[in-house]
């Protein structure tokens, strides 16, 4: 038995002998470098973002405001208007942008290999159309599960989760494959879009406009209160998804392969989809539909660092966070004081970059 303890893999080789291992490690270093670069970019963006906005605040005042919050004894507070604009508007909005972009990108990065479809996104399971319907129901009819600040948000969340649960329950059917799941998701999305349109059709002009605004997506709710809700969700979901990255790598190459290599494919697929949908629902109920980041950030990441999900998940999360926060900065300042919906800006900035990357991509990928 000791003999066949696989002597063919132990033929006296040492690591330095093996250029393949060296090259693989070099690649791994490149991936880590990419992660660090994007992280640094986010931090740099943050340092700039706090200094710009519709309200004229000098760089010095902006940092004075932050410094005062951190070390109230050492640094003098600027005037209230400035302090509030920086501490209660700019910083939470920036952090929310990063966090929300991160969540959307990560659920896209998970959905694509789980369903083995490059077109899958956080919205594949109808999450956004469910949320849209929930929000519309509140805005037009005035009916909601939630109260107060949770009026629209709560309803959007409940309906988006309900939609994905309905679709996931279908997947218990034996005949369900990734493709039929996507088809079901798309079909149910159409159903909810139709229901939303119906409500809009009979809704009053003002309310209808509110719905349109919601559907465009914005970071207007990027406040500390929102962060208090999203951050714990992030802390629970993202480590789990990253932990499952290896199983995800296997599922991406086929159910048979994954099963033969020891993954319980059905259970893993469902649990990953539930978590990814939950993550998406939890953020889009605050923002409205900003889905593009979730589709594109994982692809850009894969084009740059390949598709080992142990790196793709954190890296696309960071990239998605950067993309959304960056787009929001542009959207807020490009025709200041008018703030454009961030959903529009993400696509305007993201699509050209994405198309460019696809064009110059070397073969062998998708």
């Amino acid at each position: 038995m000791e003999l066949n303890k696989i002597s063919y893999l132990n033929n006296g080789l040492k690591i330095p002998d093996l250029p393949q291992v060296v090259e693989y490690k070099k690649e791994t270093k490149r991936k880590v470098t990419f992660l660090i670069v994007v992280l640094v970019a986010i931090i740099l963006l943050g340092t700039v973002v706090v200094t710009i906005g519709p309200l004229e605040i000098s760089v010095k005042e902006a940092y004075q405001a932050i410094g005062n919050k951190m070390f109230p004894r050492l640094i003098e507070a600027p005037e209230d208007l400035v302090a509030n604009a920086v501490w209660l508007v700019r910083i939470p909005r920036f952090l929310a942008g990063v966090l929300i972009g991160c969540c959307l990108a990560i659920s896209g990065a998970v959905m694509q290999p789980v369903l083995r479809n490059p077109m899958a996104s956080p919205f594949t399971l109808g999450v956004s159309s469910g949320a849209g319907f929930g929000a519309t129901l509140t805005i037009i009819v005035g009916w909601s599960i939630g109260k107060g600040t949770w009026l629209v948000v709560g309803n959007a969340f409940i309906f988006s989760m309900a939609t994905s649960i309905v679709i996931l329950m279908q997947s218990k059917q034996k005949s369900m494959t990734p493709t039929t799941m996507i088809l079901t998701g798309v079909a149910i999305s159409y159903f909810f879009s139709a229901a939303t349109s119906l409500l809009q059709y009979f809704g009053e002009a003002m309310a209808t406009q509110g719905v349109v605004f919601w559907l465009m997506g914005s970071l207007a709710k990027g406040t500390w209160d929102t962060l208090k809700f999203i951050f714990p969700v992030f802390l629970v979901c993202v480590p789990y998804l990253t932990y499952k990255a290896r199983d995800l790598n296997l599922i991406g190459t086929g159910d048979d392969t994954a099963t033969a290599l020891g993954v319980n494919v059905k259970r893993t697929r469902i649990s990953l989809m539930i978590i990814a949908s939950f993550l998406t629902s939890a953020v889009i109920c605050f923002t409205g539909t900003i889905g593009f980041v979730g589709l594109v950030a994982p692809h850009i990441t894969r084009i740059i660092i390949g598709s080992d999900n142990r790196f793709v998940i954190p890296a696309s999360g960071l990239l998605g966070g950067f993309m959304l926060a960056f787009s929001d900065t542009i959207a807020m300042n490009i025709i200041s004081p008018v703030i454009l919906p961030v959903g529009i800006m993400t696509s305007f900035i993201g699509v050209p970059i994405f198309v460019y990357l696809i064009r110059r991509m070397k073969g062998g990928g998708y």
Partner: protein
Amino acid sequence: MTVKVEQLEFSYPNAKILDNIMLDVSMGECLSIVGPNGAGKSTLVKCIIGLLLPQDGVIYIDGEELSKMKSSEIAKKVGYVPQSQSSIFPVKVFEMVLLGRSPHILWASSEEDLLKVASAIRFMNIENLSMRQFNELSGGQQQKVIIARALAQEPKILLLDEPISNLDIKHQSEVMELVKELSTEYKITSIMVVHDLNIASRYSDKVAMMHNGQIHAYGKPEEVLTEENISNVYGVDVEIGVIGGKSYIVPLKSRRNRAETSA
């Protein structure tokens, strides 16, 4: 490790695919499963790796009942080489082979894992492909990568579903020599589905000839690959010669053609 299959039955809702299959493969043995298209060969292999659940019968892996083993346990013992493999996302060869280490690792790969991957790559003689994209490779090269992945898994049993059907004759014999080496030198039990009867005859210790979901004949290659068996199962007349102590099968005429020409 041994593989034993007892009275295995498998059916899809409206078709019986496997009927009363019995096999007994001892350690280090190389078994070829042959038979016409649709005979149930791949289904049998998929049952043995646990991808399909048989309705009846028992499969033993090294004396342990397969249905009572966890898939992660099976993965440590049995390697599977599917008919074809694709990836919709870009994966490099090294990473593809590294997937074979999955049953042994939780999250991060150790130096030892990388070493084993590199050795498997070297064993399959595909070092020059290591950093290429898997999807860019030819069918034959991909096949070798997949076998390397199964080797990185360090299985005691190797199941190969038509491992050489995409390969030219040079690669065919290369792969078969490697499989043979694994079974004779390293006592890895291998079960493979092959279409080429000459390959089955030349490289396997035993041959199981399947027909309509049943095992028509089972035994040493020269006992199974007879003119009569081949004629009954495939409906092809053949002549069998002997070169270097191994039987060689030369197909003459398919019976359907003969019927047509005589009609």
